[in-house]
């Protein structure tokens, strides 16, 4: 799958639908679906929310790999922002010290089996994989 989406949260519904079709077509294990949906949403929302200097669409690519899936999101004409360097979240902090900020990227880093960031010619590309755990 290779498709561009406009910079709008309303696109999440279409992304979820397209992801579901891709899983079905490529016979990707459904147990990975929640992790993939969540990581794609968090990265997409992060790009839409913080890369406000561009109005270009965001490219999402998916391809099957052994026992799993590889997903890339590319944002065009933006500054460098490496989500793999996102600050850690103290999940043991008391309620009074907790805030929603930073939780999205933290979850992506927690759930991806691998994650890789590339920045070149003002193109910001993040790629992650999810595989079915070996039994």
């Amino acid at each position, binding site marked *: 799958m290779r498709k561009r989406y406009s910079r709008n*949260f*309303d696109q*999440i*519904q279409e992304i*979820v639908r397209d992801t579901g079709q891709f899983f079905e077509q490529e016979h990707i294990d459904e147990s990975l679906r*929640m992790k993939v*949906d*969540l990581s794609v*949403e*968090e990265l997409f*929302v992060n790009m839409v929310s913080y890369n406000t200097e561009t109005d270009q669409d965001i490219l999402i690519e998916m391809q099957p790999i052994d026992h799993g899936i590889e997903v890339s999101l590319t944002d065009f004409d933006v500054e460098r922002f490496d989500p793999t360097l996102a600050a850690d*979240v*103290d*999940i*043991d*902090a008391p*309620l*009074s010290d*907790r*805030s*929603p900020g930073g*939780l*999205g990227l*933290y*979850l992506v880093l*927690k*759930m991806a089996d691998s994650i890789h960031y590339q920045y070149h010619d003002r193109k910001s590309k993040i790629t992650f994989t999810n595989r079915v755990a070996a039994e």
Partner: protein
Amino acid sequence: MFEIGFNDKGDVAVSGRLDAAQAARAQDFLDKVSERCVIDMAELEYISSAGLGVLLRTHKRLMSGEAGLELINVNKHIADIFRYSGFDKLFDITVI
């Protein structure tokens, strides 16, 4: 598709997908709650950090009045998200 409302027991019932596109609607609803509140998540299929933020903001507001949220009938996938987020230490949670 995301739905939020009160069920027959007077609990808040949520269903569908609580994502970034739906978080504002969920927040608007929960902002009207002023007492301890049970959220039945039996029909909730998915939650992202935007939804977690709604729960956290509401829980903090209610806890300041010694109330808070209780999350019941949470499915295994969402329970995993709560565990990754440390929400299992902040909320009363009952997993299906």
